[in-house]
């Protein structure tokens, strides 16, 4: 079945991760940035699964499972936060939400 | 594929007929005998209607949405086994397109994505009713999917597998071996589970009495208000396809799939399908002679002959063997569909808040309780043996 070399998957995950980072930096919309984070998580998951496959052991998969769960929790809270922020400041542009100032 | 389409189309006919009869009307009648050609007409109508897109709509998404809905809805059917894997054709079992070791989960995966169709449709055609409708229906689908899954997990616990065929095999025997009824060591009859499942499913597919998103009276048709002609037809079909999927699932999970309801020993029961078909043929023949006129008569003759031929063909042992599974399967599915339509025809529509509170405050706890009890019953023997 998988005679595709693992390294291909790894490269793919690396690329996705990189895109995630770029999006993370470049985008302004909180939601999109949040999505970028999700993208990175996904990339990492892919790497995990690939490694698990490589070593023929399940731990990687279990970890992916956990990552997904955590991502779910995180997105729930994060989106709630986003909603509240939007209610307070009527904007989703990260750069207009500069509360993290000294 | 084509088969599926027509089924969908005829489903609408079936529904309208049933409702009509329940409401003691005739329903579609004029297009062909018993309005048998009605779906055709509908299809044609849909095809030739003008396809218009609301201004300012997000075109891409606007087009994407219905496709998504329909394709997803129909993909699931690929995972449904219509008959025993034993029925081989060209070396692979013909009655199921793709047999996955965790078919159930895939079905759920796809249905879960199905939400997008609705949501996006509601969003993309930027106008407030669809938006509201989309929001509502997606919210509804999400919240009911939870209890749907929970209800199913009970069965998964009993059968201990996610593969459809194994599940069905687990229920082999007569109908009292089906999950819904079976009372035995470490097994808890899933009657409650089924009820939860059914209600959740009805809501999941946005059917009455849970069809507010499309409540004509308040939302002008809900998320697909803006859609016309063929895209609308897609949604339409998607809805029916979902219905089919759901009832197939119900059949598999609770009613032993393609198993015959009778013990193996009653061999003569194997002749039920052909006999049934022949009976149908006879009835149709009577129709032809007595009632029908003109085109309808010709058409009826065709159908009658078709039924006759198939019925006779089924008497041939090979065909007999093949026909068993699908027949029972389709019969059960049909019954469940009938239930569907029945509920729609009889029950009034809920209010939205009622819907939500029902979903979260009643359905979810009940299905949870059912799950817990099932788990306990399942584990009980072990505990006893240990103690």
């Amino acid at each position, binding site marked *: 079945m998988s005679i595709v070399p693992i390294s291909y998957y790894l490269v793919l995950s690396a690329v996705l991760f990189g895109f995630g*980072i770029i999006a*993370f*930096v470049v985008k*302004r919309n909180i939601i999109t*940035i949040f999505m970028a984070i999700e993208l990175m998580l996904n990339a990492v998951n892919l790497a995990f699964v690939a490694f698990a496959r490589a070593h023929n052991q399940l731990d990687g998969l279990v970890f992916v499972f956990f990552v997904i769960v955590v991502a779910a929790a995180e997105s729930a809270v994060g989106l709630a936060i986003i909603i509240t922020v939007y209610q307070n400041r009527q904007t989703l542009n*990260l*750069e207009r*939400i*500069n*509360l*993290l*100032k*000294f | 594929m084509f088969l599926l389409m027509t089924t969908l189309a005829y489903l609408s006919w079936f529904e309208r007929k049933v409702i009509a009869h329940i409401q003691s009307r005739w329903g579609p009648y004029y297009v062909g005998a018993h309005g048998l050609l009605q779906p055709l007409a509908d299809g044609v109508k849909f095809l030739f209607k003008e396809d218009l897109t609301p201004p300012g709509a997000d075109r891409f998404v606007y087009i994407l949405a219905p496709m998504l809905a329909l394709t997803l809805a129909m993909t699931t059917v690929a995972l449904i086994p219509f008959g025993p894997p034993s029925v081989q054709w060209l070396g692979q079992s013909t009655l199921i397109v793709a047999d996955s070791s965790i078919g159930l989960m895939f079905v759920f995966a796809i249905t879960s994505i199905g939400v997008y169709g609705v949501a996006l449709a509601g969003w993309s055609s930027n106008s407030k009713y669809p938006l509201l409708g989309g929001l509502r229906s997606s919210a509804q689908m999400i919240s009911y999917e939870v209890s749907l899954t929970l209800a199913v997990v009970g069965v998964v616990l009993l059968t201990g597998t996610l593969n459809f065929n194994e599940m069905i095999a687990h229920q082999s025997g007569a109908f009292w071996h089906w999950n819904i009824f079976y009372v035995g060591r470490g097994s808890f009859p899933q009657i409650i589970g089924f009820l939860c499942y059914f209600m959740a499913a009805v809501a999941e597919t946005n059917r009455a009495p849970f069809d507010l998103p499309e409540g004509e009276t308040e939302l002008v048709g809900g998320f697909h208000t803006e859609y016309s002609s063929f895209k609308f037809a897609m949604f339409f079909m998607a809805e029916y396809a979902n219905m089919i999927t759901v009832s197939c699932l119900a059949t598999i999970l609770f009613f032993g799939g393609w198993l015959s309801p009778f013990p193996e020993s009653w061999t003569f029961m194997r002749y039920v399908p052909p006999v049934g078909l022949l009976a149908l043929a006879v009835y149709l023949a009577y129709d032809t002679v007595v009632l029908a006129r003109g085109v309808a008569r010709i058409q009826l003759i065709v159908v009658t002959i078709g039924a006759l031929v198939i019925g006779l063909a089924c008497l041939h042992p090979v065909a007999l063997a093949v026909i068993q599974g699908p027949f029972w399967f389709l019969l059960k599915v049909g019954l469940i569909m009938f239930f569907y339509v029945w509920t729609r025809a009889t029950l009034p529509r809920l209010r939205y808040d009622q819907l939500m509170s029902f979903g979260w405050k009643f359905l979810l706890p009940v299905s949870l309780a059912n799950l817990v009890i099932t788990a306990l019953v399942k584990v009980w023997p072990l505990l006893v043996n240990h103690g």
Partner: protein
Amino acid sequence: MFILDHLWIIIALPLLGAAINGLLGKNFSKPIVNSVGIGSVALAFLSFAEAVREFSQLSPNQIPWVKTYFTWITAGQFKVDFSLQVDQLTIVMLGVVTFVSLLVHIYSTGYMAHEEGYYRFFSYLNLFVFFMLTLVLAANVVLMFVGWEGVGLCSYLLVGFWFLKQSAISAGKKAFITTRIGDFGFTVGILLLFWTFKSVDFNTVFKQLISGPPDAAVSTGVLTTICLLLFTGAIGKSAQLPLYVWLPDAMEGPTPVSALIHAATMVTAGVYMVARMNPLFSRAPFAMFVVALVGALTAFFAATIGLVQTDIKKVLAYSTVSQLGYMFLGLGVGAYASGVFHLLTHAFFKGLLFLAAGSVIHAMGGDQEMPHMGGLRNKIPITFWTMFIATFAIAGIPGFAGFFSKDEILDAARSGPNANIWLWLLGLIGAGLTSFYMFRLIFLTFFGKPRYDDHKVHVHESPRSMTVPLILLAILSTVGGWVAAPHFVGGTDYFEKFLHPVFATYAPAVAEGPAEAFETPGMILLHALTGWPVLIALAGLLVAWWFYIKSPETPKKLSDSLRAPYALVLHKYYVDELYNAAIIQPLLWISTNVLWHVLDETVIDGTVNGVARVARESGSELREIQSGNARSYATWVVIGAVGVTVLMIGLWGMVR
């Protein structure tokens, strides 16, 4: 074997009482507080009785009976269990502690009746009992040390009980700090002990003493060092020279406290500890000698100071110090049993003395100055008689408790295994002085014509709750001695035999235990000489009588004629002043000029402020980065990631 299996009950009871009274007592009425306080101790006493019963059924090889409840501390090799131990010595101490504290509790209900913070007092007392019992029951040095410090704490709390009185507070502090000096030695001793024997369990250590420790590097020198260090602790706790100064001041506390803590139990902790450690000491002759010497000197000097004190409690305090000196003398000359025996009897009569004194003060309405008293013997007969008996006991008049114990010690000092005639002499003179100042106290207080005016002070006998303990103790101080009446007065010396295993089991092979010492032929000579203490005691009595009854003006004359020594003694040899000049002032000076002005202000403050300044300025620079724009932060994160990646790829390249 209920209690012996659940020894923790004994110590848990007072703790429970303390907790209840301390936490909830504020809202309790007096009866409830009493019932809780006394009840807990009474239960402890009962369980002690039960423990004795069970103990008597143990076969000798089951003794010492050690119970380990849980592992308390583990750090590498260093492992301390929460384990309790019972052997004969423990039994004796348990008896003393539980019994005396029970009486004192009862007494306090009368004595403290009109005090603020009644519940506080009782919870402190219970707490004290708890710690004392822990100290006594502990099966290893560390746990013992816990009790040790705990009683110190309680003594601090109780001495400073009237925390509105400045003198009380400072006295409490003094007690605590002075003891702390000794405790420092004690701690080091414990560490050294562990370092040497890789264990802090008494029995483990002692076994090793017999069968050589793991690394056979335990020279007598090490042992001596350990013993001396431990003994410093004892000096501090049991108020020996030169650290005795805190005990007289500790008299600021309520009298029951003085009776319980500063006469009967806590101050004897040092004695108990040395007795407990006897196998070690027996193997360190020099340490033994030091113990004996310190004991004897303390006995003597404290006695001399006691001669001229006018405050009734101060007199008793100094006598306590000197009696403790006797105990150490006894231990030092190897007569452990005698030392412990004196501890026992002393607990009785000194407790009695203090309680009686308390009752006198109670009668005098809080006045402690003997010159203001006089002729009280008809006013408060019970107090008088009990105190009289106690005086006989402490003075060593034959037949009373003190007689036996003190004589045993003196005999041991004279003819024991490591006898030393000079020490004996010191002790002897001390005994004379003791009887003198004690009778002086009695005469000044109870005889002669009243020196107070009846209008101000209305003298009255104390309530029963106070007198009953007095009577009980009086009885014990009378007959208590006979349990150990040595052979030479025809006694069976039961006590000696009872304690024998404790001191003989691990005794060094060469030096035969004190128990055998009495069978030595020297006994005959000894018997002849046993008269000495008696005679000198009687002499003291007579002199006192002469001075304070017959011709009351003699003391005046005497003090005038030899003024210098009198002043010297009156001012307690200026020890306090000495310490003040020699230690406290320099300490103060150093602290102010070096530690405060130099070290603290320049170095530490300088550093701290410098750090703060650096932080502030760099912060004000760095705040530019804190644009509040999350995107920048994101970019920073990315920059960090890039850095890491570069690093790792570099490493990776190397790895490959």
